[in-house]
């Protein structure tokens, strides 16, 4: 009888003893791309990012996604053109995946390897630096992804026959909260 009770206790206690799986939810995310043209500079902003992180055995897998059409550059014609050149109707989402050690959340800076799917292409960015600040239980992460148009095989759009620069750095500002 005692043996059976001990067995039952052990079986019940096992899941509690295994490493707990925790989650992070993206509370607020702003992504801003910057485009340079000989005649002017443009920023396109999206506040529509959603994200989730799941942690297991000290490692966290993060996924952040944002609809391509949600980027607003302040001009509807330019946004529609951006949607066209990036094939945003065929590939409506930009997704960013990364894997980080759980301990990253306690440091002030960290570097992440990112896998980005955009415009029907996948590009990897190694060791992208990010700043991290924890306040009121939420973690604010800021950084810039050094993206280029050629990474995603996008032909540089042109205005008055002058093409934009290949570099389109994407500024990331995110607030994550553990669940």
């Amino acid at each position: 009888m005692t043996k059976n009770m001990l067995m039952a206790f052990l079986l019940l206690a096992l899941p509690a003893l295994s490493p707990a799986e925790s989650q992070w939810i993206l509370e607020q995310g702003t992504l801003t791309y910057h485009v340079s043209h000989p005649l002017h500079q443009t920023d396109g902003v999206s506040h529509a990012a959603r994200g989730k992180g799941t942690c297991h055995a000290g490692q966290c897998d993060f996924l952040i996604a944002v609809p391509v059409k949600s980027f607003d550059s302040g001009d509807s014609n330019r946004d529609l053109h951006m949607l066209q050149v990036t094939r945003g109707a065929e590939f409506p989402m930009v997704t960013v995946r990364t894997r980080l050690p759980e301990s990253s959340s306690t440091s002030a800076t960290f570097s992440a390897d990112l896998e980005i799917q955009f415009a029907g292409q996948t590009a990897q960015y190694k060791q992208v630096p990010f700043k991290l600040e924890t306040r009121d239980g939420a973690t604010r992460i800021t950084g810039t992804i050094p993206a280029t148009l050629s990474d995603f095989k996008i032909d540089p759009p042109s205005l008055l026959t002058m093409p934009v620069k290949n570099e389109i750095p994407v500024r990331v500002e995110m607030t994550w909260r553990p669940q």
Partner: protein
Amino acid sequence: MKTRATQFALSVGVAMLVLLISARLQAQVGGAALSGTVTGPSGAGVPNAKISVKNLTNDQSADTQTDAAGHYILPNLPRGDYEVSISADGFASKVSRATLTGATTLTMDAALEAPQAQSQTPGDNLPNAPSSSRTEPSLQDLGFPATETQADAKKQALLDKRTHMLKIHQRMGLITTVPLIATVIASMGAGGRDTSSASRDLHVALGGLTGDLYAITAYYAIRAPRVPGTETRGPIRFHKAMAWIHGPGMILTPILGAMAFDQKSNGQKVHGIASAHGPVAIVTAGAFGAALLSVSVKF
């Protein structure tokens, strides 16, 4: 004999119907495709590399091999999140993730590296690369509405056509600027007390060319398809507003110009409504220039 022929025709008909239905069903089930090129460290295509994909929702797998140039394609994949494994003799294997969002082809190229001494687990080529574990969040976990994540090939075609037409509109607008400026310059010798018919003829010829080029420019802007649900915002609003000035102006200017030309050719001083030719032309050219600048320079 007749019965046999009827039976044969009936059998062929049924067989064709079955083929047609099965092809239709296959087209409905499939849709998305994954394609790309597998290259080695030298950049050359890797032939006979094995590409395996596993749907992370239902564990269904599919695989294929690259051709002699390193190209591969996996057609008819249902939408969802996939684990993509690429392996080839003499190279380190590579595992990535891909999300297929609809009836489109996702391009995933892979550069395989030379094998390392230690055995590699998925993602080892990057210190903290995305893992292939089943605990990873998927796009479905983020709760986006289906309308935002689904591919829309028709809309893409509409956007492509729109951009194509507006590119021509932009180029033609730039080309039109040249004879427009030349017409304005030529007008200085065509009006006033000048009685030279050569100056007037040059002004008329340049004006005619400007009008023709302007008509082509306007055609590509007017006929470019509209994208439903798009609100006009930003400098493009001013650009469009200017069209309501230079558009009628480009019609009115040559009419008034023709009247002025007749009066001048008859030795008369330009009078009446024809005397508005100059001011109308200036306003029209000004509006055209402002429209051009509004989309070119950020104020």
